């Protein structure tokens, strides 16, 4: 029999905060990446308009980070039901913060690298492959956070 102390009334607060933080922090990272790379694209486009379509890659990668957060948030909020234990709440809070803050870091990195990369690519086209490689390494940081958060989300927690 499950100890009733493990299922207090406020246990769903932590699960909900996990879902919210997954979406909100990845949105911040994606927004920063999009805005910063967008500024670089606007500046580079004046110099070389034909390089714009190749320069949209950092923006797409920043958007993918928001999708990671969306996926985790939807997964977490789908598991919050009537029989929600405190352990499940803490697991899901950790999962949400994991993808959220990782996505925030990755988004900031993608933004700064994308900004400098598209400006450099407009002046020297041979920089393109190097910029893509660096962006991939920045995106992988968010994938690490996604792996950890998925591991925590799908774990079978105590049911009340």
């Amino acid at each position, binding site marked *: 029999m499950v100890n009733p102390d493990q299922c*207090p*009334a*406020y246990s*769903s*607060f932590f699960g*909900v*905060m996990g*879902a*919210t933080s997954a*979406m*909100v922090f990845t*949105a*911040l990272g*994606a*927004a*920063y990446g*999009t*805005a*910063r*790379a*967008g*500024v670089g*694209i*606007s*500046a580079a*486009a*004046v110099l070389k*308009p034909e390089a*714009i*379509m190749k320069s*949209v890659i950092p*923006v*797409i990668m*920043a*958007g993918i980070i*928001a*999708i990671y*957060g*969306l996926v985790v*948030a*939807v997964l977490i*909020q*789908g598991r*919050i039901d*009537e029989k*929600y234990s405190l352990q499940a709440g803490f697991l899901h809070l950790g999962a949400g913060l994991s993808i959220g803050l990782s996505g925030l870091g990755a988004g900031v990195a993608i933004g700064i690298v994308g900004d400098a990369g598209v400006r450099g690519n407009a002046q020297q086209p041979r920089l393109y492959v190097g910029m893509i490689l660096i962006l991939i390494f920045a995106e992988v940081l968010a994938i690490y956070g996604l792996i950890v958060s998925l591991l925590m989300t799908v774990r079978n927690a105590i049911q009340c």
Partner: protein
Amino acid sequence: MGYGTLSLGAVSISTALFFYFGLTYMLTGYGFRFDIGWYLTSISPYMWACIGIAFAISLSVVGAATGIYSTGVSIVGGGVKAPRIRTKNLVSIIFCEAVAIYGIIMAIVISNNVENSVSNAAIHKNYNAGFKLFGAGLTVGFSNLFCGIAIGVVGSGAALADAQNPSLFVKILIVEIFASAIGLFGLIVSILQSSGIAIGDKN
């Protein structure tokens, strides 16, 4: 002092105060009084839900407003030498406005789930509902806040590039579409979080 410094200062001061009070209670033997669970359950679920509604609309509007002023300044400034950019760049302003509309839609959807209750039955379900509505409001509010700021920055760049070369505007609009998708994601999560629950006697 920029926004980054102020927000970092606010977050670090509040975290420091949190740990200071927690450690003081714990080390003086009164640790049982630092009770997060009591704090969460002593605040009425109506308060949680209504604060969620407030965050949903207020933060969305702040984000939209930030985007509009960023873009508007650039449109007006760039339009001094190139007045033709006025009309086309209103599209960026409309993207920001859409962010505010997401916020008001979610505020109305969340507030439809809050009803009056006269009995004390199903307290657990009311707490769950209150927390979920709080989370839903927070999600859409902050997502729209960041999305609005991003659209503003990109729209500003688009206006200035358009002033230099008219053919650039449509391509930089692609970046703005990606920026507005962020607010849409927040809206989706918030709808899922606030669906199927209600505060009140109907649960």
